[in-house]
């Protein structure tokens, strides 16, 4: 039994997602270990983003269960929750494959919007804040401090008042991660965070993820195409192909799994040996 099965932060159980006749995910089960960086990999169209959309409530799974175990002992069945509740109550945050920032708002504002729920409570659902009652002012200052903290982490503190749409691609990716972190998540789902980054930005991203794992009570699951990134930072790798799990284990294990090699090279299982010989792996 591996570490991620002992104390999973999220258990995905028999997840199936159909779109009409298309089965995007078929009976998928895996665990995401608490405190781990888990990578979800697979060829294009394997169903990785669909898994994320099920976890974060944007799609309602056709079948299966998604059990979130929060560190305070609460259990949440994500497949039954509305999308915004999943972030608000189950503490799962996400980023998007095609970045979704609030482009016309400043970088600081982006991070403030992410702290909407605690600020709403502090402002007595706007009434107290409007009347200028005490608590809200302090919470507002705290929220700005939190935002500043993350801006320093992602090196954007100097540009806090610039519109988010003005940032470079790599900065936007990191800002989206920081914004997700501002919701105070216990599970952070990153959809291809390294896509389109240059090597320097890629390195900064790795450092950021390592930092989040080390300093915060947040487990990370990420979708990634770049194998070198996956091998370097993940503790646990789950491989999908055509909506089915074909491998699950440590990076070392997955790298040498013939099913994975076959899937990535696009051949049938029984031809794997032959292919492996050709490529010279064995």
């Amino acid at each position, binding site marked *: 039994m591996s570490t991620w099965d002992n104390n999973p932060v999220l258990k995905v159980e028999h997840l199936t997602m159909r779109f009409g006749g298309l089965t995007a995910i078929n009976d998928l089960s895996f665990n995401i270990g608490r405190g781990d960086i888990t990578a979800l990999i697979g060829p294009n169209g394997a169903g990785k983003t669909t898994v994320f959309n099920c976890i*974060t409530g*944007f799609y309602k799974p056709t079948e299966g269960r998604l059990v979130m175990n929060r560190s305070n002992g609460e259990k949440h069945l994500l497949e039954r929750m509305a*999308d*915004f*509740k*999943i*972030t*608000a109550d189950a503490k799962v*945050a*996400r980023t*998007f494959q095609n970045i*979704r*920032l*609030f*482009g*016309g*708002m*400043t970088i*600081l*504002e982006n991070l*403030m*919007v*992410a*702290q*909407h*729920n605690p*600020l*709403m409570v502090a*402002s007595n659902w*706007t009434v107290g*804040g*409007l009347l200028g009652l005490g608590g*809200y002012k302090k919470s507002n200052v705290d929220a*700005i401090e939190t935002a*500043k903290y993350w801006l320093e982490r992602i090196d954007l*503190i100097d540009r*806090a*008042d610039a*519109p988010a*749409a*003005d940032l470079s691609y790599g900065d936007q990716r990191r800002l989206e991660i920081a*914004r*997700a972190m501002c*919701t105070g998540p216990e599970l952070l789902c990153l959809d291809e965070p390294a896509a389109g980054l240059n090597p320097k930005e890629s390195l900064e991203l790795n450092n950021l993820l390592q930092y989040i794992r080390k300093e915060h009570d947040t487990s990370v699951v990420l979708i990634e195409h770049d194998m070198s990134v996956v091998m370097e930072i993940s503790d646990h790798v789950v491989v999908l192909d055509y909506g089915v799990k074909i491998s699950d284990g440590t990076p070392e294990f997955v790298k040498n799994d013939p099913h994975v090699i076959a899937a990535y090279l696009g051949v049938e299982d029984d031809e794997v040996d032959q292919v492996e010989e050709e490529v010279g792996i064995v």
Partner: protein
Amino acid sequence: MQARQKDSLLVASVKDSLGAAVITFALACVMVGLRVDVASGRGAELFLEHRWLAVAVAVLIVFAGRLAMNIFFWKREDPPSLNLSGLMPKGGLGANSSNIIKYGLLGLAVVLPFVLMFWLGARGSRQYIDLAILVLTYVMLGWGLNIVVGLAGLLDLGYVAFYAVGAYSYALLAHYFGFSFWLCLPLAGILAAFWGIILGFPVLRLRGDYLAIVTLAFGEIIRVVLLNWYQFTGGPDGLSGIPRPSFFGLEFSRGEGGFASFFGLDYSSIHRIIFLYYLIFAMALFTNFVTMRLRRMPIGRAWEALREDEIACRALGINTTNTKLTAFALGAMFAGFAGSFFATRQGFISPESFTFLESAIILAIVVLGGLGSQIGVVIAAIVMIGGFEFFREFEEYRMLVFGMIMVVIMVWKPRGLISSRTPSVALSKNAKGISADLVQEGHG
């Protein structure tokens, strides 16, 4: 190379314009060229009039106009409109000049009735103060709608419905229960907000065009109900004898106990007009104050975030339905306040005052002013409503002129007159406004 490009530009433009001319010809033949008229000389006989000259003129205008637009704007790589907008201040107005306009207008609004009185006397200034009241009413409505359309990005074409709810709330409460204006003012706002929530609940699932059409329909439904519920609302006859507001219990009436005698002034009907002016001025300022405060609070930021990207909002744990509903209800509430003011000012209301055209005018003020810009709404309201009254002499042509002005503004400044967004929170003191090109308009 250069010459050939010029050549193809001309050819393409002429081709395109010819196409437009043909379409115009086909349409104008039946719509302009033939006209059925009643012959005056020969009893009531109908006869067909041919107006081929008018058709030719129409076709020529379209051809020439389209050719000019093609050659100078659409088919050019460097349209002069680019240079034109280069001459204009970039990113809307700078913070400084925007502030000057803001405080300038505010100061002017404070002293306006007295300046007019001094200048034109009580009799002569009445008409202008009335116009100023009208403008301020639209400013308030524009600011209210700005919450819904400008901040939350929800296109509401039935905004006038809440204006009607406010007006009728006051009129009916006063009629059936004898409530005073000051009691009805908050009640009208609450009732309008309540209707905003009731109507908002089913429609806010819809997005974009669908939302626009359903809000339009709801606006019409409310008007039709007011029109047909004869026993209760008086139907097309409307409600008259709506009580006038008092000044802390002092009526604006002649004789003992009135406003004038209390303050030892000579009675004049202008007192009430001036009072109404300051009343709507205060109400509008209140709307602005609340909106500006809300913008800096979590709910206001959530509205703007919703306009930018609804899916991202949901991924951040924001309850988008509630957020939209609050925007809808708040916008409706301010329309309700304005409605009860309208009722008390007119003393008479009927469903005719709450047609779709009103919604369209308010929306035009918001869009022309620049979505989300408070000062833009003021300028647009002054230009639209003031201009509307100013050109009253031109009768039917003023609609034409206004249509043209709107087209010109939308071509020249597609994001409205004031098109820069001030951040709701900033670390540095001199944070710049955000150019409207980056700001989304909302999707539903």
